[in-house]
């Protein structure tokens, strides 16, 4: 709750967004809106088997369908399609199986592409799919990671079902658990989720004279360009990737997809532009999934609640192949199972296991929601075992605000935070004490609708960087971010950013930052992004990194612009550069009330270049790259009250309070919006969503009728507020906010449900906590209690 330091006109202002003008009027360019002359449509024949050998593919029937120009099998591209990349080989001996964009010999999940049809319109392409004849020899599916490592299990790949085992340990765990007065062990299920961005994936590719332009609904145009070059061998300079307006990602568009590679190869083969847009059913099958872990947690504590040690053992479902960062996702949580708490010892082990299911990869939070769920659920349970208030237990263990910077048991250094302040504010907004009283009354009166209170004092590591640490974790890429500032002759400003927004509002927020830095009007700034020709450098948008890494890059570029402009101003103002000062968009000579020059005047003078000092280049444009020394650590306290109907199992969220500390907020309205959306997704994991495969490996939740995204009627109104401890690792003091709500909310909701039912002896309910599951848990508990409610 730090006061703003300086009067800044744009920083901290709840600006409505620039982006909205095209979005609320339907003038947006989604990839699927793009039509090129002569453009053809691709549709894919996909495997109906979870695991099978392909014995033959005959596309000749499809070629007889009027309007079909071509049809191909995987074998037709075997020599040029390469293998989809995994950029995160987490251990030296990790098994990374070949992953052809179109299967050639074997399919390993339902939905894997085996052939494609290219026609002049999308209806014809769809019609012709049934004329492709594929024969399979079914092989046994592998669906449960808990038995997939048994000797007797069928194998997904020849090398077996284990991809890797990754471990980390610090402190003396044996000592921590030896003679510990309190040890509890819990097993949690992180169900498989489908990210479900509202815009389905779509790709358009043209190939003219060996130069490729790929439009894609992607979060990562820069990474896609690089990966396309590596996978296909097409020279990088001949590939341009454009992410037009992109309709949400949540990690699902952080991928080098089979369809992107194949669109490029097909465009080259046919010499015609091509488009592929997935249907939602196709997308549920083939957009990478999220989560899917089994977690075994053991925690040792003193009788008074002080934590001694924590041991984490994970099984993580990789699915059939390793995609861009599949094996790294659990590692993103590995350093956060300790949460905000001090302890003496920690051990972590994760085993990555192959199954015949869609690969998993990043989904909002990626590893950190799983870690947060485990520690926050365990803390509530530990408090119950100790007979303590769960907030009191947390307070006894958390890092106090005067202990920062604090190096945790996982060797992360949390630079700033104030858990006391966030918790105090959340309790106040929530009316914590009153709700506890009401809970007691309901318990005492045997009210069939019980009240539960769930807590999540979460932390996350975000701001995807620093490159050096990512390298130490065996991630192949970097994490810096790049920005350019271009001063136009009319005094207007272009920001070129390497971030690639898909709903976050970078055009607005980056304009706010530059308006302050350069003293120019917000309206005079334009943000360019998402096209590798226009914005050639960057690492794109994911991991709550854009403002925390991309923001400082913009500031750095602005500082260079000002530095260069000072030199030019010194010539015009006839004073040495070191005597030129800049404030509020104007250059003046220190101590002089005389002539001044605005930055717009300097831009024009630089453009004309009539009076540039000798030896000075006639440009004040500048580039900057920022690579922070540490992650940033947003945190917060979320409190959830649920009413659980013990007769029907129905759970209703009565109130939800989220107090987040994301450091400084450039645009508080956008920050609040990010929290709201994150909450919805985290609550949805707790209550509604699950990707379900049947015993043969068929996905049962292929539509939005089966995979239940929450509607407005399913969600409560949220109470949100912020406390503010600035990040110390960037000059803006920002931490990032994209994933906070999702990371925090899932355990808050499940803790609240379990808290309502704890008097029945219920300690856990597997997510999603549907009415049926809650009812079954209640029923089983009542049976165990001898039928008494």
């Amino acid at each position, binding site marked *: 709750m730090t006061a703003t330091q300086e009067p800044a006109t744009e920083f901290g202002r709840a600006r409505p967004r620039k982006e*909205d003008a095209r979005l609320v009027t339907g003038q947006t360019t989604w990839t699927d809106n793009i039509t090129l002359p002569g453009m053809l449509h691709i549709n894919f024949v996909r495997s109906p088997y979870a695991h099978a050998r392909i014995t033959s593919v005959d596309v000749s029937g499809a070629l007889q369908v009027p309007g079909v120009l071509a049809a191909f099998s995987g074998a037709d591209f075997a020599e040029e399609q390469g293998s989809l990349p995994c950029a995160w080989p987490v251990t030296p001996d990790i098994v990374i199986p070949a992953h052809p964009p179109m299967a050639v010999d074997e399919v390993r999940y339902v939905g894997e592409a085996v052939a494609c049809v290219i026609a002049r319109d999308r209806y014809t392409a769809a019609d012709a799919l049934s004329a492709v004849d594929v024969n399979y020899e079914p092989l046994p599916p592998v669906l449960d990671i808990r038995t997939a490592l048994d000797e007797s299990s069928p194998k997904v790949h020849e090398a077996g079902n284990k991809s890797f085992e990754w471990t980390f340990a610090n402190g003396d765990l044996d000592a921590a658990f030896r003679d510990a007065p309190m040890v509890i062990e819990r097993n949690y299920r992180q169900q498989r989720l489908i990210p479900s961005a509202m815009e389905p994936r779509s790709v358009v590719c043209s190939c003219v004279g060996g130069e490729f332009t790929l439009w894609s609904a992607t979060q990562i145009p820069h990474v896609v360009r690089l990966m396309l070059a590596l996978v296909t061998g097409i020279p990088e300079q001949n590939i341009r990737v454009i992410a037009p*307006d992109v309709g*949400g990602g949540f990690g699902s568009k952080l991928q080098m997809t089979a369809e992107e590679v194949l669109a490029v190869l097909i465009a080259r083969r046919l010499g015609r532009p091509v488009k592929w847009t997935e249907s939602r059913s196709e997308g549920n099958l083939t957009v990478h999934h999220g989560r899917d872990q089994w977690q075994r947690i053991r925690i040792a504590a003193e009788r008074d609640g002080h934590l001694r040690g924590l041991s984490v053992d994970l099984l993580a479902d990789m699915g059939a192949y390793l995609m861009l960062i599949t094996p790294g996702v659990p590692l993103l949580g590995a350093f956060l199972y300790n949460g905000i708490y001090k302890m003496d010892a920690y051990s972590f082990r994760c085993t990555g296991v192959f199954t015949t299911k869609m690969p998993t990869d990043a989904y909002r939070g990626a590893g950190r929601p799983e870690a947060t769920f485990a520690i926050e659920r365990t803390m509530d349970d530990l408090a119950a075992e100790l007979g303590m208030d769960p907030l009191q237990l947390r307070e006894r263990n958390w890092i106090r605000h005067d202990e920062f910077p604090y190096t945790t048991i996982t060797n992360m250094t949390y630079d700033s935070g104030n858990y006391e302040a966030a918790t105090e504010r959340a309790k106040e907004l929530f009316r914590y004490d009153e709700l506890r009283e009401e809970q007691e009354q309901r318990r005492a009166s045997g009210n069939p609708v019980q009240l539960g209170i769930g807590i999540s004092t979460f932390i996350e590591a975000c701001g995807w960087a620093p490159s050096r640490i990512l390298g130490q974790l065996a991630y192949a890429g970097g994490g810096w971010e790049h920005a350019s500032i271009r001063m136009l002759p009319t005094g207007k400003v272009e920001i070129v950013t390497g971030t690639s927004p898909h709903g*976050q509002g970078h055009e607005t927020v980056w304009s706010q930052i530059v308006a302050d830095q350069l003293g120019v009007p917000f309206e005079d700034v334009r943000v360019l992004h998402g096209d590798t020709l226009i914005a050639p450098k960057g690492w794109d948008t994911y991991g709550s990194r854009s403002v925390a890494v991309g923001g400082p890059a913009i500031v750095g570029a602005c500082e260079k612009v000002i530095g260069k402009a000072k030199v030019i101003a010194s010539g015009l103002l006839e004073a040495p550069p070191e005597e030129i000062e800049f404030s509020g968009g104007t250059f003046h000579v220190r101590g002089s009330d005389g002539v001044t020059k605005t930055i717009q005047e300097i831009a024009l003078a630089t453009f004309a270049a009539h009076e540039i000092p000798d030896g000075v280049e006639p440009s004040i444009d500048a580039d900057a790259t920022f690579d922070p020394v540490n992650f940033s650590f947003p945190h917060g306290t979320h409190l959830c009250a649920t009413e659980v109907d013990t007769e029907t199992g129905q759970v209703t969220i009565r109130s939800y309070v989220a107090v987040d500390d994301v450091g400084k907020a450039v645009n508080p309205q956008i920050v609040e919006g990010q929290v709201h959306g994150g909450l919805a997704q985290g609550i949805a994991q707790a209550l509604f969503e699950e990707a379900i495969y049947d015993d043969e490996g068929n996905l049962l939740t292929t539509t939005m009728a089966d995979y239940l995204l929450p509607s407005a009627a399913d969600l409560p109104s949220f109470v949100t507020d912020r406390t503010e401890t600035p990040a110390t690792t960037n000059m803006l003091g920002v931490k990032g906010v994209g994933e906070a709500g999702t990371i925090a909310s899932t355990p808050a909701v499940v803790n609240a449900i379990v808290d309502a039912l704890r008097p029945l002896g219920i300690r856990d309910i597997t997510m999603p906590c549907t009415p049926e599951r809650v009812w079954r848990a209640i029923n089983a508990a009542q049976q165990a209690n001898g039928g008494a409610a």
Partner: protein
Amino acid sequence: MTRITVKVDGVSYEDDVEPRLLLVHYLRERVGKTGTPIGCDTSNCGACTVHLDGISVKSCAVLAVQADGSEITTIEGLANGEWHPLQQAFHSEHALQCGYCTPGMIMAAADLLRENPDPSDQEIREGLEGNLCRCTGYENIVRAVRRVAESGVTS
């Protein structure tokens, strides 16, 4: 092929269409109204919501031939010189992030306010149940619709 006559955002069109052609594909690919997006294939998401003779419909669940003789308004035809109050309110209240659901959400909200000019928050939530948003958590969408309702200027 079947000949249909429709008016879309105030302009008349006469076209031969396959009987199976979905209205949303007709709007996007024949009339060029790409402001109406497609989010699913089971009529669950509502992204493609338009007004058919003044009533909101999911245009993926209507065949183009069923719209013969009808007047259709899409998000592109909603503004009348200046933005519709819902477009303005969605902007002011930050009721959109990626914006993919927004055309359908605004068209559904307009129909909701036509039926019930002064809905409670719960009625707004229930009235928009057929339109899914993955970004906003709906909080600001409810605020935007309420803001328009409170202003009394709903069209």
